């Protein structure tokens, strides 16, 4: 298992290099630069700005400078937020997104997996229909709508939860629910399909014929095997949730990292674009490695080849 983890981490280096290179050159190809503003600046001032941020050098040289800095662990500086490094920005924003994303992930699993299991076990009943209706709604209704709805009901109408901001644990409830709604729905559908497939297996029938109770069969023999595809999606899902959501952070005024995936691009904040992309890619690699390890725990027959 240790070898597997090491192998995954070693392959991460070239993957991250490819991601960095593609992102670097793609963003330079997009029209517009970090200092293009509503009010056009005199050429002397644009020259000063370009010199300060080394944007007056050829793109290839800028690329080499960036990689050299990156190798030393320096993610660069923000062109938008003067005097702040990318590391400053992300290290302040990431813990917030991590907190909110973890809560949302937990909620998604707690709601999605039991709901999917229940729908599969009670296939064709009103419970199944209701669970699948909810999960279809969860997948199709955008987070913005869900969030606005929750704010209106609990924040403005009932006044039992804060409308927005990030001041106390109570402020986490509505954003976490909003963020969890769609993945919970997805997990529910996935679990239902997987449980239904396992329930048809011969060994499940054998377990039942040996006199095991219905719920015991489900909990002990079906669910563990049905969780393999669920665990597969948990890898990327974790990376997505803990790096924040633009919509949820925007709606609830949460100082997380999700907004930077969008604003860094619209501001042409080159180093920040690189920073967010690389962190997301690295997290994706790590969470996928964890998923591979989890496979082996759930089903020791699965020997993962690196």
């Amino acid at each position, binding site marked *: 298992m240790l070898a597997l983890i090491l192998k995954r981490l070693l392959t991460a280096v070239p993957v991250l290099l490819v991601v960095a290179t593609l992102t670097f050159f793609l963003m330079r190809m997009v*029209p*517009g630069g970090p200092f293009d503003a509503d009010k056009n600046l005199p050429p002397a001032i644009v020259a000063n700005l370009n010199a300060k941020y080394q944007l007056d050098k050829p793109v290839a040289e800028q690329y080499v400078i960036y990689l050299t800095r990156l190798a030393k662990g320096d993610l660069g500086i923000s062109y938008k937020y003067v005097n702040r490094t990318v590391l400053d920005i992300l290290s302040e924003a990431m813990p917030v997104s991590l907190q909110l994303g973890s809560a949302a992930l937990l909620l998604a699993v707690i709601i999605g997996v039991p709901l999917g299991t229940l729908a599969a076990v009670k296939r064709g009943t009103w419970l199944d229909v209701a669970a699948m209706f909810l999960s279809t709604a969860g997948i199709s209704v955008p987070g913005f709508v869900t969030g606005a709805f929750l704010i209106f009901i609990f924040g403005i109408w009932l006044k039992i939860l804060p409308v927005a901001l990030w001041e106390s644990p109570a*402020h986490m*409830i509505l954003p976490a629910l909003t963020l969890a709604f769609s993945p919970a729905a997805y997990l529910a559908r996935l679990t239902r399909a997987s449980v239904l497939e396992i329930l048809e297996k011969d060994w499940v029938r054998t377990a039942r014929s040996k006199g095991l109770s219905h719920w015991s069969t489900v909990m002990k023999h079906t669910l563990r095997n049905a969780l393999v595809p669920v665990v597969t999606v948990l890898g990327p899902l974790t990376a997505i949730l803990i790096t924040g959501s633009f919509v949820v952070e925007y709606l609830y005024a949460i100082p997380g990292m999700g907004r930077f995936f969008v604003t860094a691009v619209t501001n042409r904040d080159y180093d920040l674009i690189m920073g967010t992309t690389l962190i997301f890619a690295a997290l994706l690699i790590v969470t996928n490695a964890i998923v591979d390890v989890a496979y082996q725990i759930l089903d020791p027959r699965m020997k993962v080849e690196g």
Partner: protein
Amino acid sequence: MSQSRFLKAAATVVFTAATLISTTGCSSTVDGYEPDTFRINLQAEPPSLDWQTSTDSTSFDVVSNLMTGLTQYNNDMKCEPGCAEKWEVLDGGKHFVFHLRKNARWTDGKPVTAHDFEYAWKRLLNPATAASYAFFLYDIENAYEYNSGKIKDAELVGVKALDDWTFSVKLKRPAAYFLYLTAFCSTCPLRKDIIDKYGDRWTEPQNIVTNGPFKITLWKHEYKIELSANPHFFEGPPRLKKIKMFMIPEQATAFGLFENNQLDYIDNRSFPTADVERFRSSPLYRSLPLLRCSYIGFNVKKKPFDDKRVRQAFSMAIDRTLFPKILRRGERPAYTWIPPALDGYSEESKSEFDPQAARKLLAEAGYPEGKGFPLTKVLYPQREDAKLVVESVQEQIKKNLNVKLQLEVNEWKVYLDILHRDPPQMFRQTWGADYPDPETFMNVFTTRNGNNYTRWSNSEFDDLVDKASAEQNQKKRAAMYAKGDKLLCQDEVPIIPIYWATQNTMVKPWVKEIGFNAMDLQFFRKVYIEKPN
């Protein structure tokens, strides 16, 4: 336990937990005001609190309450004494001598001296600072030369501390608007020892020193800034003990917080259009026209807009009274480039709606009934208000001139890139005043100005603007600007002014002495909170 019972129980637990947490976690201010505290929404993170590298209104909203320059604005946009208690204008307007008050103090108790201004202004011009607003000082002797690297010696720049309390500024030529620049955030003083000590981190709350009515006590990036009263402020500490500036990006969320009494004041940044209409008659609502104009520009180097009759025809074919009805935020129709609030505004410069005369002019230009008119593109940025404006222009031009316009939308930076490199035949753009003087508007369309995307070059206009900016007699100066405005809006028409933006605000009844100004600068030094009855 049956499943339904289990679900009910789980829901009850979650709901009860949520209610309990919310009861303990919510601020006690949910149902009312917070004593001596003023809560507002900045909407976004200020990109910089270094007042020399800030260029945006969000940063200036914070800095305006932290810093005071040589002069300071009142809400009528007049310059009042700031750190300078008086000044002399010598040599026909080319030499300013500022006499500083001796009781102006930094937040660490040290006096604000002329040396702090000399250091600040030279730093603003230093190419290494790469300050976007360095051009504000280009009227000063050798300022442009130093900023553009043509000379290396900062001592040659025409600013000097004659002693601790006297600051001398020598200009290349008289600039009638110069005093306004001394109230602008970018020209506020700086402490060399603080910048030397903390380097790039000098703006963090634990390091920064300021000289205005408030000092910064907390900066939680992307979330909140807190200011507290500065006991050393030369006018005496303000009555407000604290200002909380949140960064809530979504208008509807901020409006919800205002409704829940968690914000005391909202402006356009927090005021959805539907709510502006709903609350227009509320006693809490106030609105004020701003010195910000939206206009349609023509690239006069591209056909068919190289013919001024076509440009005039388009201007006469657009009914400006329609835009406030479409945009619904209290906008004022604009018929001139100089706003009514400034010197130089004249009814005689107005461009009136006259579709019949427009059709006649278009026919004279060779396009009777719009026949044979070439394909015309209108560029606009991806914004809802810009879209509504250009769609209305498209419809009106079709209806009144039988000319079809093709709309082209682009993401903001792509739009700017096109505008900077190769402006299309028509585009929608805005301009906001940097200072309350007609020069800030008129200079835009001079030949040398980089913001003149129309490529229009008129020596008579350039000459008028140059002379007016140096003229010390205000009456003569206003007449020159009025003549220039007529050239711009009636005779040559490189642009069609469309509407003046309006600031829409709502203020809680316990907030007193809050002022508004046409520059949209937020000064809270006189604001206080009175306990509601």
